């Protein structure tokens, strides 16, 4: 069963089985001719708690999600939000301009924009399909 499901989800490039209860941000990755855009949901974090790094073609988003200070000293009635340190590594399929990467944090969403190198832009070509 496990392997079956693992294979099924890996075929979509997903890592489905996170340890139960641990926080792991949901991530969208999109691409245009000129850039790659990665957006990650990091609710309750401050921009100072987030670290973004690039090594070779791997973008890593890491940090620690902590409970709000004002939440302490009260009794829990329900707890669904998860906390803890997290790390997500996203492989980029193309070369990017490392010194032109921009990251912004707004409304709990981190958006990283990675411009492709001129070489990478040149290499992305649509291949016409001939009809016979």
């Amino acid at each position, binding site marked *: 069963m496990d392997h079956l499901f693992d294979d099924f989800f890996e075929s979509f490039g997903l890592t489905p089985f996170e340890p139960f209860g641990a926080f792991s941000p949901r991530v969208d990755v999109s691409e245009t001719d000129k850039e790659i855009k990665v957006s990650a949901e990091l609710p*309750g974090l401050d921009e100072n708690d987030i670290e973004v790094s690039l090594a070779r073609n791997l973008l890593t988003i890491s940090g620690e999600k902590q409970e709000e200070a004002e939440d302490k000293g009260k009794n829990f009635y329900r707890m669904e939000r998860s906390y803890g340190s997290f790390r997500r590594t996203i492989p980029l399929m193309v070369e990017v301009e490392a010194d032109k990467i921009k990251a912004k944090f707004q409304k709990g969403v981190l958006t990283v924009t990675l411009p492709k190198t001129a070489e990478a832009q040149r290499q992305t070509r649509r291949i016409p399909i001939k009809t016979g």
Partner: protein
Amino acid sequence: MFRRPFFGYGVTPPWQEMARLQREMNRLFDAFSLAGGRIGPNYPAMNVRTNDEGAVVTAELPGIDPEDIDISVVGDTLTLSGSLQPETLKEGETYHRRERGFGKFRRIFQLPFQVETDQVEASFKNGVLSISLPRAEQDKSKKIVVESTQKKLEAK
């Protein structure tokens, strides 16, 4: 493919087998919820903390426009609804990976006390909505002084 041999070293107790099946199902649903698209029925994730003064509800709504959130309180019931817009793609932009959800949500939560509805306050910061719900005066706990009969007797 299988974790244990089909006809292995004796029979697994059925309750253990049920627990295992439940774990597998939970994991499967977790996996689906990570696969993006429409948000699930338990969206957004909420924490509720209470004390003598009232309750504080926090909900994770990253990326939402605060104007798209609707909060209503009637008696002891909080209703949180709204819609999360999917990000618009640029011309020629395509997704490689999509885990973030979008769509309409509605969560109804019953508190263990009546709320002073005109004193409810809400704020939104870093993708977290925080609602403070003060306890109604009639639902506040009152200290009951236990009179000592001993003293009364002594006074007589």
